């Protein structure tokens, strides 16, 4: 991949110190975000509070006989950068597509910027920028022409301002020099940047990026981080799915981990990493009954070698125990789980399946790459 020299130049204020800057900001924002998460935890099906940019309740999507997504309750706090983590086929992309109204859920509700979908799509979508899977552009048009086509469909963009917005967006993703070239000749990274530019054509309240660093070289990856940091500074909520744990650690304030179509953990990044109260380990012989009992009550749970792991992000330990007792599960021992993101992630996603391999045999922080359809 070749990138023109100007494209590599770091943004003002970001660069060598950019990473630490992002992290610092992320931490400072955590305080606010944590409160929101906590306040949300108690109210399940009520009207979405003003503090959520996007929210799903009991979301389910079935393709034929395959359950792609099941019982997903996702909260994206306003102003947060939420990293969505999960291995292949964990339902990340399906969830994002339902969140954007691209896919109709089999069951459950989606609220985007306070508007219920799909009826509120016209009100919500102008404020949402998105890059989902492989960006679909036309090979015979130049990058600028492709973006102009997108710009024409943007309601909040005046006709006279289209060309200017396109140039600004191209500049922002470092494609200004290649804007006149046909999309056909773009490298994978440039295609990804163009998709990002389309999402950033005008100021958004929510930006959804599905694997934004896919195909980018390290410099491009840094730039995407810088863009996310810029968006975060401007108060924009960002939802980013990624297979790079380091990237999530560097840029995100919040994390949601999906596994086999369910959210197995979500909350503030620091909370998940350091507060240590993310999960409850239950030692029991009735593993299947216990997992089902908890999931039926929409408490994220999964089997572990010793018993059952229950996620406490949206519930409390007594609640879990009460549920288990109600289900007549024999409980031998209950203890809190402390975890780091990598450990957490590995544990959340690698076990209870023989065939599913994850980060244990590859670079520690890289999950399977999620391929577009």
């Amino acid at each position, binding site marked *: 991949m070749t990138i023109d020299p100007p494209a590599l130049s770091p943004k003002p204020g970001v660069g060598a110190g950019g990473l630490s800057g992002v992290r610092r900001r992320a931490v400072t924002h955590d305080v606010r975000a944590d409160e929101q998460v906590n306040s949300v935890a108690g109210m399940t099906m009520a009207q979405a509070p003003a503090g959520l940019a996007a929210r799903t309740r009991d979301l389910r999507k079935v393709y034929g006989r395959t359950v792609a997504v099941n019982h997903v309750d996702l909260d994206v706090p306003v102003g947060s950068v939420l990293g969505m983590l999960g291995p292949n086929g964990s339902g990340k992309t399906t969830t994002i597509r339902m969140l954007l109204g691209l896919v109709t859920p089999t069951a459950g509700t989606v609220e985007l910027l306070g508007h219920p979908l799909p*009826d509120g799509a016209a009100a919500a979508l102008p404020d949402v920028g998105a890059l989902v899977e492989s960006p679909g552009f036309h090979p015979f048009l130049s990058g600028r022409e492709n973006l102009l086509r997108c710009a024409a469909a943007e309601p909040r963009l005046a006709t006279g301002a289209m060309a200017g917005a396109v140039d600004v967006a191209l500049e922002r993703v470092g494609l200004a020099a290649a804007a006149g070239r046909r999309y056909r000749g773009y490298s994978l990274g440039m295609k990804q940047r163009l998709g990002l530019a389309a999402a950033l054509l005008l100021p958004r309240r929510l930006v959804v990026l599905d694997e934004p660093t896919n195909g980018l070289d390290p410099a491009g990856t840094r730039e995407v981080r810088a863009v996310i940091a810029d968006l975060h500074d401007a108060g924009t909520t960002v939802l980013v799915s990624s297979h790079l744990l380091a990237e999530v650690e560097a840029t995100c304030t919040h994390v949601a981990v999906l596994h086999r179509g369910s959210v197995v953990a979500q909350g503030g990044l620091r909370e998940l990493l350091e507060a240590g109260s993310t999960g409850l380990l239950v030692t029991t012989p009735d593993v299947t009954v216990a997992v089902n009992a908890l999931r039926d009550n929409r408490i994220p749970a999964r089997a572990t070698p010793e018993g059952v792991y229950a996620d406490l992000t949206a519930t409390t330990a007594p609640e879990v125990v009460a549920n288990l007792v109600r289900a007549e599960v024999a409980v031998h021992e209950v203890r809190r789980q402390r975890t780091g993101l990598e450990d957490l992630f590995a544990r959340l996603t690698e076990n209870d399946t023989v065939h599913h391999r994850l980060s244990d045999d590859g670079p520690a922080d890289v999950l399977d790459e999620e391929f577009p359809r």
Partner: protein
Amino acid sequence: METKKTVLAVAAAGTVAGVAGLVLLASPAGAGEAPPALPEIGPEALVESVLSTTELPALSGAVSLENNLGLPVPGLSEMGQDGAVRVFTDGNGKHRLQLPSDGGETTVIDDGKTVWVWDSVDRTVQKTAHGAEGKGKAETPLESRFADPATAARELVDTMRADSTVAVDGTARVAGRPVYQLVLAPQPDERTLLREIRVSVDSETRVPLQIEVLANGQADPAVKVGFTEFTAGPQDASLFQFTPPAGAEVTEQTPDKEFRGESAEDLFAGLDIEPYGEGWDTVLTGTVPADLLTSQLPTGPRGEAGPGGNPLDLLGTIGKEVSGDFGTGYVIKAKVGTALITEDGKVALGFVPEEVVTEAVNQMK
């Protein structure tokens, strides 16, 4: 803002409307419509009014033929397939006929002095000064020799009543116009295959718009000739003028020759046709020169494989071989009639069953 439900409802309504429209297009015009209310009229008065219309009024229309005889009729069936014959008259003896042929058109224009026949496939024009070909054949008006239509009608109806029941059977619509239906049915003792002949007479102009021939045991008419479009009213004079187009080959015909089909004329002259019987079971008898029956058939005009052999062989394939007092012959049956041709050239045909034609042939010398 449209919700999904509204859109789906609109889409469903649109689909239903589209399908309904197609079905409506496919169903014949006027089907299910109540017959028009017209003043009562007796058969004599109706026939009289038809006869008093000695010349067609100015009109434009389209005539089509439905042939359900169960026998291919050369020429006629082609006309039914290609589309309707378009007819224009100015009410003063000028006519224009447009007959579809081989994807092109044969246009016959009678401008009062000259008959022009244009054939688009060959791009030829035949010009015939007036005399031989006068009137359009599809709607030749009844003979004008009935000086007194009232008397003529009474006589005609009386004659018909000898072997038929004549009645006005209500009203209907033909080509969108209200019509009286004059029905001629054979008396019970008539030995005929026909059930009735139904003539639809336009209630306003008293032009017969449609003739249907119905055979025994058939729900649909065996033959139906009639207007599918009919508009009475003055016609543009330019319709009845003709200038041969550039590049067309013009041939002039002498007036005393038929403009086409002279061989058929000769054939019929030699047939020596005589009627046998009367009324509905009239059988036409005649004699075909025996050498004609054994002559070699030409191959088809467009080079398609001809039936080969002589006409007798052909009769053997489409008819049934019979023998009797007359010798050996072939019977050809259609829904409305029967024909018998013997090997020695005797021919009998009529709207009758087989035994009547056999009887007719037997009495021939």
